[in-house]
């Protein structure tokens, strides 16, 4: 299990390959990569991500540990950035490795659902005209009910 919280960019392709090599012979590897989306108006300048140092790492650790309890996983990787990002930048990534694809898929979705609503990150969208904190979505909270 590897949990990374950093402001620096990361390389999803290199992470996928490194993860696959370290779990060699596992069978199934699923990744989710989150990328900064521009606004519908096309004028997003910066996406600023604030987090709660200390709690962030422990929350992500708890979520990943819970995933390993619920599914048969060979390994779990979670990377999440904070700081000032731009449209097209990678925000975060999760990767799961298992013998069978069902475990890897379900665990990756579980990680994403919990990470969205239970890890202490907050996004702010900054345009030339001002800034707005991104509101949480009811559907994200509701997504937790299926697990």
């Amino acid at each position, binding site marked *: 299990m590897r949990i990374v919280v950093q402001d620096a960019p990361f390389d999803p392709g290199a992470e996928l390959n490194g993860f696959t090599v370290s779990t060699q012979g596992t069978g199934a590897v699923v990744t989710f990569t*989150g990328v900064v989306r521009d606004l519908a108006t096309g004028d997003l300048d910066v996406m600023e991500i*604030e987090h709660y140092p*200390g*709690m962030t790492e422990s929350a992500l650790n708890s979520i990943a540990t819970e995933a390993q309890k619920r599914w048969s996983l060979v390994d779990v990787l979670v990377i999440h950035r904070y700081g000032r990002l731009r449209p097209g930048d990678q925000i975060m990534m999760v990767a799961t490795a298992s013998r069978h694809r069902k475990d890897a898929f379900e665990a990756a979705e579980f990680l*994403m659902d919990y990470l969205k609503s239970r890890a*202490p*990150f907050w996004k702010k969208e900054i345009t030339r005209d001002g800034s707005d904190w991104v509101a*949480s979505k009811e559907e994200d909270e509701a997504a937790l009910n299926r697990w």
Partner: protein
Amino acid sequence: MNVLYFAWVRERIGLPKERIDTDAETVADLVHELSAREERYAAAFADLTALRVALDQELSSFDAPLAGVREVAFFPPMTGG
């Protein structure tokens, strides 16, 4: 105890962290005490349904006791991922 604020709660209150000496028994008591102290707290805590609280870096609830707690954090619902 240390009290931390994040995102728009931090912006409304105007600081990320402060040390507060209080006899509040629960999180809700602390919220009332701070809200009574200054308008910026009252503004930040106006709608508790829009807020989350963590005690010693674990998500908790507003009726949780503060006995033994060293760090309280207030913030809006998370929007990571």
